[in-house]
């Protein structure tokens, strides 16, 4: 009777897992939509996994003698286990938040004939499926390939198989434990917009941290350096009880190590289930009913708004509208101001600090060219990473119908959006170029007389901003998306103009460095070149370029209003 009951519960959880996977939009192998028969798809998938295992094991088998002189097998496996634990932990944090808290399916699942425990187990099973399969394939294949070549015994094989399952389970359990406790304690995090804001900030920090740390701790990229990093990770892994005990079992044959490792994983999973039982449902259910905070409009605020002109009022509306969501704050503002962290920082730290090569003060004939490329880089990066212009009309959503009924000229409406985007992008480009100029003049990198180059760079940047922003606005006006599920959905999408701008900015950045290196060459006293002639040519080219850019900017500005007027975003 009890056996029947257990089987029934398992089948219920299995069905629930299937339903949850379907709801999450995940495609199932061998479903009715498969291009071959479902049975063949399943068999082929299994064969493919086995084949992949064999290939990976073969590669590990071949690489073992290459790596052996640099790192011991024990250190290598420990560091790989540590990396796998971190990978499953990070992956589980994302999965747990989306599956447990933001999936919106709890209100639909609660009335169904499933117990609370079954729902939680099914949700956790959905989130752990990928890390376990990934870890099982990668760890077994590589560890066995390495172990067979190194002549390891049965304990190594058993330990490998166990750790390929235990490590992702431990990672998931720790992630769940942390997330459930954090969501319970910090109530503000349950707000989805705040969650997007936090994840955006963390992503930015991680992205910025990578180039900084890789330059600070980079040791030339040799095989010895790479292996010493793995050894360092292996040393850290000793602090993780389950990895260190499993390692003792695999390499020293201590059978207690295996049991302690299993016991640690079981203890973490039990603690996680206990915490989930205590806190999960109350927290998750409180997230199902949320609403926007409302503020009463004061008479004085309305009176002030009336005094401003239509364009000013619309610009103020645009500024307020663009700040209403934290995801806009990240992708519309923060990214515009943070681009120098990605491009600038790596060249100030560690082995790549190329600025130490430049002799001060910097007064080369190619300075106007450097200013030109600096301005272009700043503009392309600030506008490329910015979603304000690219989503200007889509951001209105259903409010566009209300705006269309207002007695507002479309030209004013368009220009208000352009002005606001110009303000923000200019703060992230023109202002940066000017600040850099002031800093360089004060610190003596350039003489005060030569600092007009930065004004030239700022001017180039402003004109380029105008062209890119107008292009982005016309692009969005032609294909506005007024019906979206969430604001985060539109705030994360960069259009092709953004991407082209980023790529051009990146190219300009490298050209800028090439020009700086060229200046180092030209400034050498033994270089027999007519420097006056070069200076004159560069000055003429720079002036011509700014005139052409000005003409293009004015033409694009005039045309873009007309083109946007004929678009679907136009007021009727």
């Amino acid at each position, binding site marked *: 009777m009890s056996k029947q009951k257990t089987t029934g519960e398992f089948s219920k959880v299995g069905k629930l897992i299937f339903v949850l996977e379907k709801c999450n939009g995940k495609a199932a192998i061998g479903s009715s*939509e498969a291009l071959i028969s479902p049975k063949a798809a399943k068999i082929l998938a299994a064969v493919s996994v086995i084949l992949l295992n064999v290939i990976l094991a073969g590669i590990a088998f071949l690489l073992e003698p290459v790596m052996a002189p640099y790192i011991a097998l024990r250190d290598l496996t420990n560091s790989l286990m540590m990396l796998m634990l971190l990978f499953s932990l990070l992956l589980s944090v994302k999965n747990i938040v989306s599956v447990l808290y933001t999936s919106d399916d709890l209100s639909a699942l609660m009335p169904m004939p499933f117990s609370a425990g079954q729902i939680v187990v099914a949700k956790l099973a959905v989130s752990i499926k990928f890390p376990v399969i990934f870890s099982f394939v990668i760890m077994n294949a590589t560890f066995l390939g390495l172990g067979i070549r190194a002549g390891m015994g049965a304990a190594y094989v058993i330990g490998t198989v166990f750790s390929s399952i235990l490590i992702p389970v431990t990672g998931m359990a720790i992630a769940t434990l942390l997330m459930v406790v954090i969501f319970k304690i910090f109530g503000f995090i349950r707000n989805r917009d705040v969650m997007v804001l936090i994840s955006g900030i963390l992503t930015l920090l991680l992205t910025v941290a990578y180039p900084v740390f890789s330059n600070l701790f980079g040791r030339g990229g040799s095989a010895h350096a790479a292996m010493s990093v793995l050894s360092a990770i292996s040393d850290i892994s000793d602090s993780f009880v389950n990895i260190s005990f499993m390692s003792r079992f695999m390499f020293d044959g201590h059978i207690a190590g295996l049991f302690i490792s299993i016991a640690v994983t079981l203890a973490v999973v039990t603690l996680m289930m206990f915490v989930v039982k205590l806190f999960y449902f109350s927290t998750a259910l409180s997230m199902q009913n949320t609403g926007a905070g409302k503020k009463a409009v004061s008479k004085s605020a309305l009176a002030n708004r009336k005094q401003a002109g239509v364009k000013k009022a619309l610009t103020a509306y645009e500024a307020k509208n663009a700040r209403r969501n934290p995801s806009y704050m990240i992708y519309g503002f923060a990214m515009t101001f943070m681009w120098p962290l990605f491009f600038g920082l790596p060249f100030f730290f560690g082995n790549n600090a190329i600025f130490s090569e430049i002799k001060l003060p910097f007064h080369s004939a190619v300075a106007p060219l450097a200013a030109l490329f600096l301005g272009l880089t700043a503009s392309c990066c600030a506008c490329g990473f910015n979603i304000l212009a690219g989503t200007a009309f889509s951001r209105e959503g259903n409010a566009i119908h209300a705006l269309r009924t207002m007695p507002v000229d479309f030209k004013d409406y368009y220009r208000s959006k352009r002005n606001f985007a110009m303000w923000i992008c200019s703060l992230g480009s023109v202002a940066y170029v000017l600040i850099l100029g002031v800093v360089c003049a004060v610190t003596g990198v350039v003489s005060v007389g030569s600092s007009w180059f930065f004004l030239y760079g700022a001017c180039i940047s402003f004109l380029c901003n105008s062209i890119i922003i107008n292009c982005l606005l016309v692009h969005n006006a032609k294909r506005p998306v007024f019906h979206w599920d969430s604001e985060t959905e539109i705030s994360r999408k960069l259009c092709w103009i953004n991407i082209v701008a980023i790529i051009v900015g990146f190219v300009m950045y490298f050209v800028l460095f090439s020009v700086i290196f060229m200046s180092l060459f030209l400034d050498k006293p033994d270089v027999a070149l007519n420097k006056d002639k070069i200076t004159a040519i560069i000055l003429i080219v720079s002036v011509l370029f700014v005139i052409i850019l000005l003409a293009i900017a004015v033409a694009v500005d005039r045309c873009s209003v007309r083109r946007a007027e004929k678009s679907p975003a136009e007021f009727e």
Partner: protein
Amino acid sequence: MFFSIVMIALGIYTIFYGAKIIFTGKVSKKEEAKISAYSQKGARTYKLLNAGLSIVVGLCIIAQSIINILETQGILSDTFIYLMIPWVIILIAIVVYFIVAAQCKNMKDQ
């Protein structure tokens, strides 16, 4: 060496993507929206085409990386022709892809 390993990983991912299309019958959301207007036969052919191209390109990337590794280790020398073969195959696969993909739109169910 490092670049070749990265390219092998990319090749494996591309093969996986192709295999996923065959096993699940699903392409990316954007492409699903594109082929929603196609006939059943056209959609199926388009998916098979995508899967085939991914697998062929993945295999060629891996082949090229392996040739590079073998050259670095001194096992192979003068690998120009060996390296050209995967490139030619990729080029032919892309041309075939575009020709057949254009036909998919006009395919009709019997």
